[in-house]
């Protein structure tokens, strides 16, 4: 139990140091039991509000132990007198002799608050019925002995509070930094939750954001007590009064008796920026049912504004990034983003020797559509093409608006035939679409796609080569009547045949 000075925070009268308050109390009880030949010694805390004495530690039969027992002193009893006068009192009964040594001290909040923290309780010393009782002189001596310990108990309590205060200061400094540097949504939400968990250690922290468009509160992330962070995007709560307690909180309605009861272990913190609520942060100790310290609640609340700003910044940053990486019309990634992903996927395909297919598609007669019906209709065509493409791809596929009406789709782990099947599905779906053109005679417009496909490693061994071959195949389709699909390997085969047959002018150049 004895520790070196560095790790300790309380000193016993003999100069020994103890690791924490519990070890200190244990030592005090063992010391007084030994010095005054007791059969038992107990330490109680007194809760003035309920009038109950709470047993914390006991030493009996040579063993020290923690125990839980709530007892109410009988009015007029020796215990009640001791607590009232803050003077030691003795009693004797068939069960033995007892000495009650009360104490009370208040200490200032080390965080500089105006309040004082009370520490009120008593020691109960006992001897069996066949042993002698406590004489006034012995009672005074035992009381003085305990008081000398209590001076150090005071220090122990103060240091314990001070340690909490230090922790809070560290939390303020480091969390502020986390919130200020959190920019990207995917990372920042994780950082924010991990930061809160690191410093406060709640059973759980959950973040919900408001989806204004759909009037929903959507789950984002949840961090548990072990620091594991997982998505809770499956949680969606309609933002309507009475639909759910979370919705009521965000809408500023009454939280009800249920939440009032658990306010000690749950904090619901609406996140607001410039008066607009953007989400809800919930921290709880529901699993452990442990009280969240009021100072921690206050500190977290004071961070509310910063957390909300950090969350909002991250969302704005993502929005800006989305605008710079995605085409607003087709919702497809732009060429800049494609180049980056193409490099990654090509590297992966090379490294793991997996196939990679590339589809290059072009809307047939797009220039004519624009010239005849105007750019509004042209935009509609592209928008529909984007929608059809996005709804048909696998998660790992990556489309891109390469420029104008040219669209490229990267298909990792796909062969030429698999790419052809996807291309057929896209062509067919697009060909079946009727785009309304109110001012034209036909009242509707139908469009088709020309598609060229190349594959790695069959057709090309480099990124440029793969693009070039897909473009080659597309050119061949365009020069053979459009609205078709061609694999480069087939085009090359055809070209070879044509060359053998005497040179056909429209065969693609090698």
């Amino acid at each position: 139990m004895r520790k070196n000075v560095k790790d300790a925070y309380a000193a016993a009268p003999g100069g020994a140091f103890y690791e924490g308050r519990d070890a200190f109390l244990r030592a005090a009880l063992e010391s007084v039991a030994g010095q005054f030949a007791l059969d038992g010694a107990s330490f109680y805390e007194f809760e003035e509000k309920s009038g109950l004495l709470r047993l914390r530690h006991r030493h009996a039969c040579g063993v020290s132990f923690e125990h839980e027992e709530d007892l109410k002193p009988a009015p007029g009893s020796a215990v009640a007198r001791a607590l009232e006068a803050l003077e030691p009192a003795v009693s004797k009964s068939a069960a033995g002799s007892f000495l009650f040594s009360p104490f009370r001290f208040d200490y200032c909040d080390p965080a500089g608050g105006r309040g004082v923290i009370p520490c009120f309780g008593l020691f109960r010393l006992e001897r069996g019925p066949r042993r002698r009782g406590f004489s006034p002189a012995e009672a005074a001596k035992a009381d003085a002995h305990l008081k000398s310990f209590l001076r150090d108990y005071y220090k122990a309590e103060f240091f314990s509070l001070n340690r909490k205060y230090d922790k809070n200061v560290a939390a303020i400094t480091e969390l502020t930094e986390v919130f200020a540097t959190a920019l990207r949504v995917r990372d920042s939400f994780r950082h924010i939750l991990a930061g809160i968990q690191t410093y406060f250690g709640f059973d759980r922290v959950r973040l919900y954001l408001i989806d204004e468009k759909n009037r929903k509160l959507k789950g984002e992330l949840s961090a548990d007590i072990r620091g594991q962070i997982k998505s809770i995007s499956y949680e969606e709560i309609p933002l309507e009064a009475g639909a759910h307690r979370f919705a009521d909180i965000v809408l500023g309605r009454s939280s009800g008796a249920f939440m009032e009861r658990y306010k000690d272990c749950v904090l619901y913190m609406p996140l607001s920026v410039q008066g607009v609520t953007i989400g809800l942060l919930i921290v709880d100790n529901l699993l452990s049912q442990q009280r969240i310290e009021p100072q921690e609640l206050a500190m977290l609340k004071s961070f509310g504004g910063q957390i909300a700003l950090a969350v909002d910044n991250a969302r704005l940053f993502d929005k800006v990034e989305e605008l710079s990486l995605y085409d607003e019309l087709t919702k497809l990634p732009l060429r800049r983003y494609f180049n980056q992903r193409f490099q990654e996927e090509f590297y992966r395909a090379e490294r793991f020797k997996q196939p990679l297919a590339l589809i290059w598609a072009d809307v047939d007669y797009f220039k004519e559509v624009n010239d005849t019906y105007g750019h509004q209709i042209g935009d509609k065509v592209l928008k529909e093409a984007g929608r059809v493409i996005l709804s048909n791809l696998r998660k790992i596929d990556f489309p891109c608006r390469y420029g104008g009406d040219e669209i490229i789709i990267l298909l990792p782990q796909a062969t030429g035939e698999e790419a052809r099947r996807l291309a057929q599905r896209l062509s067919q779906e697009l060909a079946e679409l009727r785009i309304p053109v109110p001012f034209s005679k036909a009242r509707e417009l139908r469009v088709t796609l020309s598609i060229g496909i190349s594959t790695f490693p069959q057709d090309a061994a480099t990124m440029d080569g793969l693009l070039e071959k897909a473009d080659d195949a597309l050119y061949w389709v365009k020069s053979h009547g459009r609205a078709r699909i061609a694999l480069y390997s087939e085009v090359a085969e055809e070209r070879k045949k044509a060359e053998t047959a005497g040179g056909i002018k429209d065969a693609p150049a090698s």
Partner: protein
Amino acid sequence: MKIWLLSDYDHRKHLAFKSLLARFSAAFPDVPVEFSVKSRKSLWESLFAHLRDSKRNPLADVIEIPQNWTELFSRLGLIAELGARVEALGHKRFPEFILKELCRNDEKRVFSAPWWLEAPALFYRPQALKSAVADPERDLATWEGFRAALDRVGPPSRRRGAHALSVPGSSGSVSVADVLPRVWGRRGGLFSDDFNRATFTREETAGGIEDWLELAVSGKIELFSPDRFENGPRPPEECAFIMSSRKLGGRSGLKMLPYPGYPSGGGLMLVYNLSVSASAQDPEAAAAFVSWALENRNLSIFTESFGVFPCLKPVFEERLREERESGVYKRLFSAPELKPNIMVYPTAELLLERALWNLSMKISRRDYDREDLTRELIMAQGEADYLLSLY
């Protein structure tokens, strides 16, 4: 090696463990070992404190836990798998009813080793019941019979605070440990059989709780025992009835019956296990201590010292054969039931504990009403249901 032992109202447990450790140290002088006795609340807090800040709040290497904490703390990664390290676990040398709850969700891995168990029962003093109960065996078999007898039997002593019924281990407020045997007796429970919802307000559960609270309301048991300070715990000779899950000495003149309300036998058993911390510095040594503590002789001496049963099958069966009240114990163990070992169960008990605390305060202030029980149970059930949806 550090060991955390659960605190017990009976000092004999602490002393028994102290002498167990003395024997261990004599057998293995090279293994330094020390123990602390932690209250249930403090142990719970220490385990969660470790999760929050493991450096500042290290765990002991070996930890005694109630069996139904195993699922929770194994899932939180605090206790280590023991199946391969403790021979008795590997060979499943425990009664079937213990194994059933030990490995409810994972039959391959075991995270704690059953150590000892206790069975709540009713003890009565034949002398005190002479004129009030004609046939104790028959009349005290049901709760109603027991309750009527309690009304007819006065406290044997005229001393202030003397009661006909004593419940050792129950102090302060009414606790979960007090009410659960009666809840089980009414075939109630805290959760539905499929563990999809909490059932605090179900008639059987609420009724069981109400039966026990009624004892406090009618003054048959005393809450927050005001005279405990000056008179200490009530000696057994001052009571006509004792509800205890420990064996009471043969010299006390008491006779034993199954807990009232279990006419066909059986009942709720409370099992306590040894676990090894997942962050133990030497997990092999810690597991070796668990194995040593579970050796027949060590287990037998330890459990006999404070009147409980060993969990190891051969020792358990031998104890049952040798028991003075073996007939009653055989009935108790004929259909034993354990508290479910599911993740949210310990928290559900805390929720119920909080409700019982509020109700106890009301009873002690004499402003308790039946509506208070309904309201408290609805609140606690709502929270337990919410927890079920989360974990």
